[in-house]
Structure formats: structure tokens, C-alpha cells
């Protein structure tokens, strides 16, 4: 009999690594939504596409897992730019119109991935092993460690840009009030362009991590989009620390559900959290205006 607290350690370890990853997933979504008001329902599909790209590089070109990250980052940032140009053409009501367009894009990407990669479940094997602490019997997988570390690094990086650079000041001003930002001389179109670029890079990082920790299949993105929306509703836009807190809470709840009642209940947790959140925050992701 090993140390009797082990499920708690597992729940906490996997909760925090999963939660940090969820924060990363939400970060790209909330950055794009906060700055451009584009509600990107294809967010999850783009992450899964990034995951497939890493999978192909790893499987067919024997690229080691860590080396798939830079090309995925670049490719997804590159793919976000046509999306930016497409969404820029839309008229008011902007958020609603982007929702409809990106819903179509999500379906398109799902079917494209179905044709290209089939409906089989794929997993990227990064070759990392797990590590068991002797006698206590606690097992810690290095995959989880990488997930935790890279997610936190990316989140901290965005936090640093937003709070300690001129660009970040302009981005935060744009998030807080689109009109005031323009009156202060901020080029909001340029900010939108940058937001899609940064969001695309975050998607490009989340993709391979997804493929390494969860199974890739063409419709897997729906859940990632749902998670991004839940955490953004919880945190509001542009609040990275709250976003991280939201990711951790959701991650801990899901991992508690997995270890106590079984993994089939995991998705129910996020759906229940969404409904509960909307009960207490009926305004959803809408922007707070003063006065």
C-alpha cells in the first residue's frame, strides 16, 4: 500500500498542468476577442490543426517533438492573418457576424481535417517518460511537466508584453475602450493585426501540446473552444492572472472528476461550469462600460 494521499497529489498535479494549458487555450481566444471583438468559434479547430501539423512533422519526418513547436507557431500565426483580413471586411453587428463566419470556418476545418487525417485518434509521443518517487509511489509524468511549464511560460510572456511594453499599453488601452484608444492616437487596426499574430502563435503552441497530451481527432476542437469561452467569461478580457486562476479551477475540477468518478464525466464538468457561470454572470463576455 502506497502513501494514502496519492490521488490528491495526482489530482493536483494533473489539475494544475491541465489548468495551465486551459489558460493558454483561453489566452489566444481572449486576446483576439478583447482587441478585435472577433468571436472566433474556430479557435479550437485551429489548435487541433496545429496539433495535426506537429503530428505529421513528427510521424512522417521524424521531427522531435520540441522542434515541431517553432514551425507550428509560425504556421498558425501565418494562418491567422488571412482570417484577420477576412473578418476585417465584416460590418456591424461585428461580434455576431464574426461568430457566424467562424462557425462556418470551424465546420470547414473539421471536414478538411477529416479528409486529410481520417477520424482516427492520434497521439504525439514526445518520448518523455514518467517518473515515480520511490516508496511514496507518486508518479509524475514529464509530459505533464512540459505542458505545465510551456503553458506558464507563454502566459507569463504575454503578461510581460501587456504590462511592461509600449505595445502592451496600446493593446490594453484597445481592450478597455476601442474609441478612447483611437482618440489617444492608437492605431487600432495595427493592434488587431498584432492580436491575430499573437493569438495565432499561442494557437500554434497549444496545438502540439494538445497532440502530446490529449487525443487529436477532427472534431476535438469544439471542446477547446468551449473551454476558451468558459474561462474568458470567468476572467473577462485582458486579465491574465484571473485567466490563469480560471484555468486552474477548471483543470482541478476536471481532474478531480476524472480521478473520482471517471474520465467520461470530464466534459460534463466544463459544461456544468459554463451553465453555472452564466447563471451568476448573465452578461457573459460583454464589455463593461463605465457610467
Amino acid at each position, binding site marked *: 500500500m502506497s502513501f494514502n494521499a496519492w490521488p490528491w497529489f495526482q489530482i493536483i498535479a494533473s489539475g494544475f498542468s491541465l489548468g495551465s494549458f486551459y489558460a493558454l487555450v483561453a489566452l489566444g481566444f481572449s486576446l483576439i476577442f478583447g482587441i478585435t471583438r472577433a468571436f472566433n468559434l474556430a479557435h479550437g479547430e485551429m489548435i487541433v490543426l496545429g496539433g495535426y501539423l506537429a503530428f505529421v512533422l513528427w510521424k512522417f519526418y521524424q521531427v522531435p517533438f520540441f522542434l515541431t513547436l517553432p514551425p507550428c507557431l509560425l504556421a498558425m500565426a501565418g494562418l491567422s492573418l488571412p482570417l484577420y483580413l477576412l473578418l476585417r471586411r465584416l460590418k456591424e453587428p461585428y461580434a455576431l457576424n464574426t461568430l457566424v463566419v467562424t462557425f462556418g470556418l470551424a465546420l470547414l476545418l473539421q471536414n478538411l481535417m477529416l479528409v486529410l487525417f481520417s477520424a482516427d485518434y492520434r497521439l504525439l509521443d514526445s518520448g518523455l517518460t514518467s517518473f515515480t518517487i520511490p516508496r511514496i509511489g507518486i508518479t509524475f509524468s514529464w509530459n505533464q511537466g512540459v505542458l505545465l511549464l510551456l503553458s506558464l511560460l507563454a502566459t507569463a510572456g504575454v503578461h510581460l508584453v501587456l504590462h511592461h511594453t509600449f505595445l502592451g499599453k496600446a493593446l490594453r488601452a484597445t481592450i478597455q475602450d476601442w474609441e478612447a484608444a483611437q482618440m*489617444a*492616437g492608437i492605431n487600432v487596426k495595427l493592434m488587431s493585426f498584432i492580436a491575430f499574430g499573437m493569438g495565432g502563435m499561442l494557437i500554434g503552441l497549444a496545438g502540439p501540446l494538445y497532440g502530446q497530451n490529449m487525443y487529436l481527432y477532427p472534431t476535438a476542437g469544439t471542446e477547446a473552444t468551449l473551454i476558451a469561452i468558459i474561462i474568458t467569461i470567468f476572467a473577462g478580457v485582458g486579465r491574465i492572472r484571473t485567466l490563469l486562476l480560471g484555468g486552474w479551477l477548471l483543470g482541478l475540477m476536471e481532474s478531480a472528476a476524472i480521478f473520482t468518478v471517471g474520465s467520461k464525466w470530464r466534459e460534463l464538468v466544463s459544461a456544468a461550469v459554463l451553465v453555472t457561470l452564466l447563471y451568476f454572470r448573465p452578461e457573459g463576455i460583454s464589455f463593461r462600460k463605465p457610467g
Partner: protein
Amino acid sequence: MDNRPQICLKVSRLSKRYGGQQVLRDISFSLQEGEILGIIGPNGAGKTTLFNIITGWVPPSGGEVVFLGEKTTDWTPDRLCRGGMARTFQIPQVFPEMSVLENVMTGAWFGQQSRPSAAQARDQSRELLGLVELAAKEATPARELSLMQQRLLELARALATRPKLLLLDEVAAGLSLKAVKCLSNLILRLRTQGLTLLLTDHLLHLIMPVSDRLLALDQGEIIAEGSPQDLIQNPEVESAYLGVRGAAGEEG
């Protein structure tokens, strides 16, 4: 050196239609450097639409705007801001999560032609906050300010962009007579520093004492133009204006 006053803003044959409704018709006027021009007119006369077109928020259906010798009709608001044109809105637009000082510094950083250092931006912003009497609140988040204070904050942020032309839309709305008096003094002080101003006000107690010249707008057209004293005696202005004020009085 040429000592003649330069034209700061020239608006020619501006018009705006929304669907079948003609909101502005054939508006032409010009504004010299250092001048204060007031635009008066009842609610719905087209004052705000005119402001929105000049500052690049709304494209006109016809006509053009020339600012400091350049045709700026299709410039974006932020480009106009960096080019020296600042404005305020009727409902103040501030950055709710930033402190009062940060709000003004944002204008100093991004709105000037060349970016000042952090220390310069802070000094300039503190000076402006002193000017609008918000210095004591510099650390307060902007969302906690009253509507009046937000309006003054928006004015300070506009000034932080170092404008040559400042457009104030209904800046006196809802202010007490004493506050209006302070604001008039502030406006006259700004003019001595070389600022050109375009104001709207649908009540007259701010615009009358400070304006060099008034333009009366009614139903999208200029119905009269002249000195404040001349204009207020113009029978057409009186009927457009007092008619509406009388009706508003009946409602209340």
C-alpha cells in the same frame, strides 16, 4: 515670415445621408489658427455628425475636409490625432481599468507626433491633471470617477496628445454654472497657448462668452453665421433655438 493667420481647418460642401435621411447638407466653413468657433443648434441639428466626420469617425457622403493644408477626409481618427486633431465625446470615453494618470499618459505616449519619454509623459500628464483639477485623483481608477470628472479626464487626455485643433462636443452638458465658468477660463487659457477650438453646445452659457464666431446649424444646414452678439439676435436662430427650448420646457 507670413504674419497672416493660417487656415487651420477648411470644410467644403460636406454632406451626410443615412438611408433616405439627409443629416448634413452642403456644410462649408473654415477656421483660422487660434480661433474659437462655436457651433450651436438644437438637438438633432447635425452637430455631432459634423464632428464625427471632421474627426474621421464617420465618412461623409460628399464634400471634403482639409486640416492644416492636407486633405484628411479619409484619415482614421488615430491618424488625425497624431496629426494634431483631438476631440472629446458627449459621453466621455475613458480607459476604465487604468488610473487617471495612466489615462492621460496614454494620450501623451501614443497621440503625439514623436513619443515622449516616460518621465516627460508623466510630467506633462500631471500638469494637465492640475489644469483640469484632477491632480488629487491621479491614482484612482477612471471607472470610479463621476461623469463630470470623466469628462475632464477625457479633456486632459485630449490635451496630452498636443493638439493644434481641439473639438469639444457638448463639453458643458450637465455642468453647474460655476463649473462652466472654470471651463470657459480654461478654454480661453488654452487659446493663448495657440490652440484652435471648435465647440458645440446646445445651451449657450459656455459657448457665448468664449467663441469668436458662431455657426448656427438647424436640420443639417447652416442657417446663420456671425459674432455671438449678432447671431443671438437673428430671428431665424431664435425660432430654431427658442422654439426647441420652449418645447423642452413644456415637457419638463
